[in-house]
């Protein structure tokens, strides 16, 4: 877990894995971190129960089911029931974690989420698995790329998108220990683990993973790794990027976003989601209201997903390292142009 090779003081302070060394990088699906975190959360608080909609293995609720069979509820293919019943359990003193694919919960169950979870102020935690096009061969019907938008628009909702499996475990524990309706988003495919147990994590506090003040790259989810790799490549062109792991979409760390805008003068947002309405849109809302700077948006541009391997789709939708690097250069150029 040595952080020696990490090229910035920020990376060392965050106890990151040396992400510049491909051999140091482990590939683990973020959903695994959820599975581990949920068991640990269940040990810490016996009010925690898990409810699943016929997907216990692929959402990784299975470990909780084995460890706490009495506190595991199988509800079948019924995502609206999943949410509304959880709200009832929460009203009676339980802390339910509810799991399905993000496409179906909160995708299918959105109005139940809004009314019975948020408006009701129920302490229900949604685990949205299989978010993003990195779901792969299942295709568009199963690739949730609108879920951040529909969740961040709901008042009182907390929305968390951790960057790797280690952080998903931390986030699961943090969410479990904090009151309020919450959406935790994670992915299916294996992805790079850049954080460690020592990496601090707090809901609502963005993390600077790399220092720099030429361009700010504000990323969330499994693409944070691509953002870091692109930032190292940009250095060869004399561009020092600040990379911010913006894991909490709501409430977003406005201070960190405004500092990035002020110090760097331009922002590239990176997310595995529609650029319309997602994390980057929220960043744009913040800077437009206070301190407008040019922005580039990495994400899916108003298209549906499709079948393919996760790497093929990441490239096809312009979210690979090359595309991020190009956006960094464009952002840098626009900043200079803006300054005349």
């Amino acid at each position, binding site marked *: 877990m040595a952080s020696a090779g990490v090229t910035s003081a920020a990376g060392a302070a965050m106890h990151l894995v040396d992400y510049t060394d491909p051999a140091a990088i482990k590939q683990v699906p973020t959903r695994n971190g959820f599975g581990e975190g949920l068991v640990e959360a269940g040990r810490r608080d016996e009010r925690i129960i898990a409810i*699943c909609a*016929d*997907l*216990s*293995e*692929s959402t990784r609720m299975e470990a909780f089911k084995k460890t706490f069979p009495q506190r595991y509820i*199988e*509800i*079948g*293919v*019924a995502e*609206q*029931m999943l949410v509304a019943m959880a709200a009832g359990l929460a009203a009676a003193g339980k802390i339910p974690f509810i799991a399905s694919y993000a*496409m*179906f919960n909160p*995708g*299918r169950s959105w109005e139940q989420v809004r009314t019975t979870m948020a408006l009701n102020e129920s302490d229900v935690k949604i685990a949205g698995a299989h978010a993003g096009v990195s779901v*792969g*061969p*299942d*295709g*568009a*019907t*199963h690739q949730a790329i609108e879920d951040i938008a529909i969740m961040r628009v709901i008042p009182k909702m907390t929305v968390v998108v951790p960057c790797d499996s280690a952080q998903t475990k931390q986030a699961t524990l943090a969410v479990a220990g904090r009151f309020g309706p919450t959406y935790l988003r994670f992915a299916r495919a294996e992805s790079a683990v850049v954080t460690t147990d020592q990496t601090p994590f707090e809901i609502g506090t963005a993390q600077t993973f790399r220092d720099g003040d030429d361009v700010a790259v504000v990323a969330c989810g499994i693409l944070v790794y691509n953002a870091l790799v692109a930032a190292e490549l940009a250095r060869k062109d004399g561009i020092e990027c600040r990379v911010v792991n913006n894991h909490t979409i709501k409430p977003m760390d406005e201070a960190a976003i405004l500092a990035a805008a002020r110090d760097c003068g331009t922002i590239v947002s990176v997310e595995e989601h529609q650029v319309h309405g997602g994390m980057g849109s929220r960043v744009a809302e913040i800077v437009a209201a206070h301190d407008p700077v040019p922005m580039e948006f990495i994400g899916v541009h108003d298209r549906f997903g*499709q*079948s*393919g*391997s996760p790497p*093929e*789709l990441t490239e*096809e939708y312009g979210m690979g390292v090359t595309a991020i690097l190009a956006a960094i250069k464009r952002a840098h150029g626009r900043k200079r142009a803006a300054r005349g």
Partner: protein
Amino acid sequence: MGLLAPERLTALEEHANDVRQGIIRSLLAAGSGHSGGSLDMADIFAALYFHVLRHDPQRPDWPERDRLLLSCGHIAPVRYSAMAYAGYFPVEELLTLRHFRTRLQGHPERVSLPGLETTSGPLGEGLAQGAGMALAGKLDGAGWRVYVVTSDGEHQCGLHWEAMMTAAKFQLDNLTCIVDRNVIQIDGSTEDVMPLEPLTDKYRAFNWEVFECDGHDIGAFVATVEKAKQVKGKPQVIIAHTVMGKGVSFMEGDYLWHGKPPKQDEADQALRELGAARELIGAQRG
């Protein structure tokens, strides 16, 4: 069942065997996908595409065609395989299943491949769309019928029951729902996950005409469809009792095959078994 001549039944069973082989080959090439439900609906899809449906593979948008909706989109391989053998597209294209840029998306997409009536995969949405089509057909006085293939697991979705009420309200006798009653879903038996029984009573209570049959007896299935078509003033359901993974010994009845493709050696064995079974088709009828 007396409806089908023996040669015709033999031909349909051979088609079902082809469809199963196509499923195995395409899932092997895909490296992911749903074997169990696809295989268990092969007999019914062969019967539909090669006997029941009024359709024209050369004219997938023929306005007078019967509409076949696959509500449980995860068993797309059975539909793709049946369509390929029926002449909608070349059989070799089955090997592109789930690949990047394929027309054979992991879950069926209407705008991707001509001949699919709806996009599906998210469960429980087929019957509602089928009811919409059937109602449109009624309003137009059309002669075509609507068939909706559903899984048993998706009977846990609320929308399916909303559609059941609606179809009965509008007396959609041009609508037939076919249920793949394999008693299996991802997390185990449907009766453990969220019990569906007594399913026939539930349909009856919702004012549907209910039929049951062995989903692997093509003659019985075809005869049941003929009876369903005679029903006036009510939608009909055919609860087809099936065995997950039917036709491949090591998959039969095992819920773990819901969402797995065969590996190379498993596919080899499956194809050997299907090849051997093909030799025996029609033999017992002499």
